[in-house]
């Protein structure tokens, strides 16, 4: 692929840029016309060969979206998004839908290989039994392949693209889609309802412990293309599933929009562990380009004693607007949120969580670590609330910010609402700087400035790192080091 090679060479020449995933794949794509209208919504639905009820759902969302305003309460500063300058649908031409691995365009496989994502079942099977990871790969607007489906199906687990699920499991979709994040939840989620193109669907039947990690890798390749993915995970009674999502995009001068919706449903005694390593292109050193990441992620602990745990490592995107939340509806249910958010250059992050305590004896834990370097702004925004029926609700929140240099900002905005007197909510917050003393001490032992910063930051985020699946811990540590390159001096 000469074009890819050329791109890589170009990328290498701009040695100021450290973004490792900034290459582009030269592949023919099938696109909708630019812009957004009812016709585009119909176009997307028709492309996906969707049933009539799904199109109605989308059109309804689109009409509602037209009446809504873009939220402006976040501590983010960006020019108004022109929704008519975006392609809402782009699919690699050779891949009309997910297929078996042998049928996937080799160029696509090569792309994922370069990203370090195992799409070959053989290669993984040859390794340790316990290390298997099933992957759903989403390229621009469509899922290109989902691995290990047959093996998972043996336990009754459904792991496929959401487009397939709409056609093959309409009852589950009708029952659960939009049941956690309502159609009109917010501006971006409503937009997503109208134009979502693909994403992953997971269903864990009663009593099953998912035998391997499930993951989805999202890749935005096309220029001016928005990615609107939709993920739905349903864990029936007495189940466990661990799910990981990763995201990357090529380096481009213009901003690209990513507005996803993720819904999790945990029934009685079910546990869902959802981890994200978000490394969308953050823009260059001057703040040009980068992904606008407006994401709605919410889990519903619908059954008693259910548990949902969010772990996120946010290092990419020019703008991040993201609050993975838990509705603790079932009695004794538990929500957890562990976050590492790193901003460098001109990145802006406004991220946090919402823990909504509705049931009795519900508990939640929030550990958020924000690291700001360069000229970036890093805000933690979190809501902890207890309904008047949420007797004995408990929350512990710890929010730590670390500043590197004196041109960046860290902000902590907690909202705490307790509507009954049996609630115990604790909130701890710290803001610190890497001290000159720490730097000198590390340097005296032989570490250079960047190595010293990386070591100190890795120590700072350790409480959160240990909640990531083993396979991704090392990768994340490396990612942290790369994200902070050029942050000192």
């Amino acid at each position, binding site marked *: 692929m000469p074009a890819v090679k050329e791109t890589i060479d170009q990328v290498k020449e701009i040695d100021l840029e450290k973004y490792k995933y900034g290459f582009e794949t030269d592949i023919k794509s099938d696109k909708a016309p630019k812009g957004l209208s009812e016709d585009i919504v119909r176009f997307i639905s028709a492309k996906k060969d969707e049933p009539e009820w799904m199109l109605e759902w989308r059109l309804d969302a689109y009409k509602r979206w037209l009446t809504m305003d873009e939220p402006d309460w976040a501590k983010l500063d960006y020019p108004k998004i022109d929704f008519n300058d975006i392609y809402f649908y782009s699919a690699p031409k050779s891949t009309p839908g997910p297929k078996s691995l042998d049928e996937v365009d080799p160029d696509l496989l090569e792309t994922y290989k370069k990203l370090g994502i195992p799409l070959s079942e053989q290669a993984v099977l040859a390794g340790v039994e316990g290390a298997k990871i099933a992957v759903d790969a989403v390229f621009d607007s469509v899922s290109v392949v989902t691995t290990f489906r047959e093996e998972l199906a043996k336990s009754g687990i459904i792991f496929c693209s959401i487009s397939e699920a709409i056609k093959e499991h309409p009852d589950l979709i009708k029952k659960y889609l939009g049941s956690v994040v309502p159609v009109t939840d917010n501006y971006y989620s409503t937009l997503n309802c109208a134009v979502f193109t693909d994403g992953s669907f997971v269903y864990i039947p009663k009593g099953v412990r998912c035998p391997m990690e499930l993951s989805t890798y999202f890749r935005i390749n096309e220029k001016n293309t928005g990615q609107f993915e939709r993920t739905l995970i349903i864990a029936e009674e007495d189940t466990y599933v661990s799910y990981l999502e990763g995201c990357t995009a090529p380096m481009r001068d213009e901003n690209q929009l990513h507005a996803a919706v993720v819904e999790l449903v945990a029934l009685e005694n079910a546990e869902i562990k959802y981890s994200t390593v978000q490394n969308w292109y953050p823009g260059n050193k001057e703040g040009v380009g980068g992904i606008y990441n407006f994401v709605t992620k919410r889990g519903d602990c619908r059954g008693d004693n259910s548990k949902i745990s969010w772990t996120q490592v946010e290092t990419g995107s020019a703008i991040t607007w993201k609050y993975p939340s838990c509705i603790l509806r079932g009695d004794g249910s538990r929500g957890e949120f562990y976050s590492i958010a790193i901003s460098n250059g001109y990145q802006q992050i406004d991220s946090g969580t919402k823990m909504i305590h509705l049931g009795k004896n519900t508990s939640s834990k929030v550990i958020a670590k924000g690291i700001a370097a360069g000229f970036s702004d890093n805000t933690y925004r979190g809501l902890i609330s207890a309904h008047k029926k949420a007797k004995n609700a408990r929350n512990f929140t710890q929010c730590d910010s670390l500043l590197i240099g004196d041109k960046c900002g860290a902000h902590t905005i907690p909202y705490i609402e307790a509507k009954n007197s049996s609630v115990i909510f604790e909130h701890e917050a710290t803001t610190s700087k890497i001290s000159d003393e720490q730097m000198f001490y590390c*340097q005296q*032992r*032989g570490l250079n400035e960047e190595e010293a910063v990386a070591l100190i930051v890795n120590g700072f985020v350790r409480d959160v790192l240990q909640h990531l699946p083993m396979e991704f811990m090392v990768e994340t540590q490396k990612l942290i080091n790369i994200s902070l390159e050029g942050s000192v001096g």
Partner: protein
Amino acid sequence: MLEIRDLHVSVEDKEILKGVNLVIPKGEIHAIMGRNGSGKSTLSYVMAGKSGYEITKGEIILDGVNILDMEPNERASAGLFLAFQYPIEIPGVATMTFLKAAMNAQRKARGEEELSTPDFMREVKQAAKMLEIDNKMLKRALNVGFSGGEKKRAEILQMALLKPKMCVFDETDSGLDIDALRIVSQGVNALRDANRSMLVITHYQRLLNYIIPDVVHVFSNGKIVKSGDKSLALELEEKGYAQYDESAA
């Protein structure tokens, strides 16, 4: 071998070091004694390259190379080690992790290969045993919640593993009880070597009962005012520093 030539250092236009001259040949241990505020600690920081000090004149030469233009980490890789009076806490970084990072950073800077994990573990275990450091302490975050004695032992452990050519001990005896002092001194003595020079900076003579110096220097008002053998330390303990104030002024 270390040589300091006519070193003048100022902080915010105030001259702290006023012409320090010092030669420490290979394998020797020298002690610098002086009262608080005489500039002893400044000398150790300037040697290690801490920022905030203006060097107005002079040179510090380690094995024939003037190290004053080098970054602190470059000086460390060149073989200079400073045992801190107040070792710094590194939260969340296990002592073991820190040791490995430091050793490999220095090896990398010298163009050597990284240590294998088994080799690293072997070296750490050996050195830790000598300093009566248990496994639990190695797993704790470096210096976080360490007692005074643990902090100083951790410093000597780092020194043992990094194998420097020139070691500077800044008030290493401060905050140590008698048992900790014994363990730390044993550690230092075990690291005496024909190819390693040491500079012990201290306020009290006590430490020099354990670490016997070849030469003792008296530091007053920003420079060395008298040098002699180890008996000079005893004399100082008896008569105090006041007698030198005059000659320095």
